[in-house]
């Protein structure tokens, strides 16, 4: 609860700062505030306001995922700073991002479905806005429009599902719902609700066949917004989905599992196969994000003690995404041209950035000793322990396919001749984010225990 309040406070500060003509300090202050919040939150020294446990609880799951979201947001804000340098709407953008963070935090710490619903809507609406925020760019408009239409539809389904839960139990309280989910006498409306919520969440995390929006929206949105979508939004949705499943469906029914397996396989395959022939980097990231969704969804198949795996995967995926986006932002500079050719010769013209990108891609591809490898490893370990060996084989086949397109970019950076006259967006923020993310990827890889023992 305190975390949420603090975040909202930071958001409001951003809005007030504009009024008080303190535009310059908005970004530094919000980042510092977020990082402070992060450390305090992680250290568990935040004074807890009691009395609201029926709406917001801060258990370990909430605490660590919130921490992840906070640090992600801080870095995302830092990374977006160059884009807003000359914007009169700086405070609007930053405050929306901070509020989105509050939505994300609500999504993992809710103890009432109302909070969950509002959280996901805050996050989604923030994203609709940001996706369409480049108002003169038709692609941005289109992205915003598509995202909005499909997102609202998904929200409707989600809402229908929540309603069915309510119909079956007469409450929105998580604890009661959990008891209902394990009770034999619960009405079957409950399960319809579960399925509808699942479908809604599958949309939010972009799982096949509800994933179609993702590549288009990723491509059309301004790049720093794409970064948010592929890191914060995806991870938050995933965590929230996980939490929902633990509440609503901890004793997963057989057929439900089967469908989920099909969805997982389809998602991984679709994401990877579609990524193969993409020419635009943002679409590649989008499709690769879809395949990562498939991987993360596997944690849902056996939720016992899978929180750590999800946290690990989410962390490594999001940080790798941050690293990648710091380079993408650096390279593509203007929005209209995000072809992979832009990366040609980066290894020569800017070895550091090329290195960051390489590490990010290798981590996403799951190459040891980087964090991404351990993420996949823990996940595979989990699903094999649960007995889904066939699924594990599909997963590793997907890992192979993924290598193709990740390495396509790597190869472009190191073997192609640089395009002459190409200018980069040479901002120190990108370097900072990239380096921090890279170091984190390596550190997490070297000491996976640091995250694996958290929850």
């Amino acid at each position, binding site marked *: 609860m305190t975390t949420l309040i603090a975040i909202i406070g930071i958001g409001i500060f951003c809005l007030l700062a504009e009024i008080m003509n303190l535009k310059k300090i908005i970004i530094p202050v919000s980042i510092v505030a977020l990082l402070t919040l992060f450390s305090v939150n992680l250290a568990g020294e935040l004074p807890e306001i009691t009395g609201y446990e029926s709406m917001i609880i801060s258990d370990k799951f909430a605490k660590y995922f919130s921490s992840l979201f906070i640090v992600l947001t801080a870095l995302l804000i830092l990374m977006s700073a160059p884009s807003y340098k000359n914007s009169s709407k700086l405070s609007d953008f930053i405050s929306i991002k901070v509020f989105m963070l509050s939505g994300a935090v609500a999504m993992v710490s809710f103890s009432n479905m109302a909070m969950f619903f509002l959280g996901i809507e805050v996050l989604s609406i923030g994203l609709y806005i940001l996706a369409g925020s480049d108002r003169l760019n038709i692609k941005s408009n289109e992205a915003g429009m598509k995202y909005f*239409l*499909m997102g609202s539809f998904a929200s409707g389904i989600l809402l229908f599902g929540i309603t069915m839960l309510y119909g079956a139990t007469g409450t929105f309280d998580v604890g009661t719902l959990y008891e209902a989910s394990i009770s034999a006498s619960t009405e079957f409306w409950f399960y319809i609700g579960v399925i509808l919520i699942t479908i809604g969440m*599958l949309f939010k995390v972009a799982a096949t066949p*509800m994933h179609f929006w993702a590549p*288009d929206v990723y491509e059309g949105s301004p790049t720093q917004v794409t970064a948010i979508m592929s890191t914060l939004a995806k991870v938050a949705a995933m965590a929230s989905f996980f939490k929902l499943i633990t509440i609503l469906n901890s004793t997963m029914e057989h057929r439900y599992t089967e*469908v989920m397996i099909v969805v997982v396989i389809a998602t991984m395959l679709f994401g990877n196969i579609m990524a*193969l*022939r993409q020419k635009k980097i943002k679409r590649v990231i989008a499709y690769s994000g879809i395949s990562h969704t498939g991987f993360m969804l596997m944690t849902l198949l056996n939720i016992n003690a899978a929180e750590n795996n999800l946290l690990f995967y989410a962390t490594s995926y999001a940080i790798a995404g941050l690293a990648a986006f710091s380079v993408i932002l650096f390279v593509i500079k203007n929005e209209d041209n995000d072809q992979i050719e832009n990366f040609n010769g980066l290894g020569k013209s800017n070895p550091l950035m090329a290195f960051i990108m390489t590490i990010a891609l290798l981590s996403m591809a799951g190459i040891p000793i980087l964090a991404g490898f351990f993420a996949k490893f823990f996940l595979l370990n989990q699903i094999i322990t649960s007995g889904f060996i066939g699924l594990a084989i599909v997963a590793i086949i997907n890992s192979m*396919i993924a290598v193709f397109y990740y390495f396509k970019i790597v190869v472009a950076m190191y073997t192609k001749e640089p395009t002459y006259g190409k200018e980069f967006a040479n901002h120190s923020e990108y370097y900072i984010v990239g380096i921090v993310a890279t170091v984190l990827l390596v550190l997490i890889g070297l000491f996976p225990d640091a995250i694996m023992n958290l929850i």
Partner: protein
Amino acid sequence: MNTTILLLLFAPLAGFLITLFFGKKLGKTVSGAIGTAAVAISFLCTLSLFSQINAGETIATFKLADWFSIGNIKINFSFLFDQLSVLWLLFVTGIGSLIHLYSISYMHEDENMHKFFSYLNLFVFFMIALVAGSNLLIMFIGWEGVGLCSYLLIGFWYKNQDYNDAAKKAFIMNRIGDLGFLIGIFILGFHFQTLEFLEIKALLGKDLITPSLLSIAALCLFIGACGKSAQLPLATWLPDAMAGPTPVSALIHAATMVTAGIFMITRMNFLFDLTPEIQNVIAIVGAITAIVAASIGLVQNDIKKVLAYSTVSQLGLMFLALGLGAYEVAVFHVITHAFFKACLFLGSGSVIHALHGEQDMRNMGGLRKVMPITFWTMMISTLAISGIFPFSGFWSKDEILMTAFHANIPLWVIGSIASIMTAFYMFRLMYLTFFNDFRGTEEQKHHLHESPALITIPLVILAALAAIGGAISLPGNSWLNHYLAPLFKKHEAHHLDGQAYMLMAIATVGALVGIGIAYAKYLKKKEIPVADSEVQGLHKVLSDKYYLDEIYMATIVKPIYMISNFAKKYVEKFISKAVIGLGGATYALSIKGKKIQNGNIGVYLFAFIFGMVGFLVYVFVIRVK
């Protein structure tokens, strides 16, 4: 004694290293001298050993160092000096010294002479290892080592790719035999858990191995011998090996290396004695080789080729003897053959030297007067090889034929015919080379001369040995048989009865017939062999060596090339395509996928709704309550 052995072993190796590394600085003559001295030292050491063993001292085994162990089998660098190996070393190093001496002059014009000597020394070293090794693997080191040297020396003039081809062919055909040898080693090693000759001999009686496996082992060893000693079907490399310098042909491809097969079988005689069926195979192969090679020799025009086929033929006779269990006879013939064949080769080298590299007998003739020493020494050797009394070849060949006669009449017939042919083509060689008028160019004629002393001295010594060498094993009173007796199973000696004299007479008459025909054809009628293009009929078949090379080419080499090409062009591509095909399929799917993702929000929503419907239907509607 140990010092002697060490010196014996390492003198050639030292010679090899010195001439290899410092040969260029030392100059030709010095390196030649060092090379010769190294072998001579070995010869002296051998003499010392020989005298000790001849004096009845015990057989010496000498362990230099451990080599390696394989399972329970320990393999050491150890050497065995018994009657057989010392005898063999004696003529190896002896003839080796002479040929080294000869080469100092013969190779003097070659810029890589120091290298020549280093290779020769290396050869002698490996030959010593082959002969003196006390276990099969040391023998194998020598075996492959001499093959290597043979390769190096055949291809000594490596600018000529034909010579290189010949060298390569020799090495590869030897390797076919070597594989057999290896398998034989495996069988013996596996069943006896040792590779030491003496231990195997001791263990043979203990029933550690089934007779059939023993036969296979013997057969495998024999295949090895076939390769090294140029027996059919692995014979064709030897004539080609004449591409090397003539001293090499004399030393390696006539006197020593090619007899390694005979040495090996003799060394393993205790094994072969237990496998009569393999002995039969050996005898038959030997006989066939003898006659086939002799018949090819009838029509060859290259002086060295004639000698080469004669070598193959003589080796065939030796194998015949081996197959009949007459090891000491085979050894006897090896020794006499070493004398006269080395002499013949060196003589032919002298001729070639005089003619500046001309080897075709059709372009020779009348050299008798210009090169008297060469002529007379070669004549003596020719008489010896033809089996004319009392030269050494008479005694050794006669013993082989006699043994054959007692064992198997058809084999005797074949052997005799081969001998007659030998007499014919050897005298054909002599007549074409030394008699009548010179047929070469004027320029060659102008330069004709007798070879220098360094060349003729070895010739004379060898001719002398060829003449009197038979003395070591005269029928009825054989020093050799007596000397080697401890090594072999006792078997009764043939009595020198009337039958024996009759056989001698028949052999002599046969040889004289062969000589007579040659005399009539080439001296009386002064016939000159026709040019290669005009050859026809049976003559052509013989001239083309029964098309053996062509047959091998068509049935083995070409198919391998074809498979190789096929594999390279199709199989590799196919596997590659199959792998890439998987990637291609995913790529193709990717294209299809891109069509679905067409930017139309309606399509996306359809997919959404269908996914949702499918989920609901599967989980809920059709669920059994």
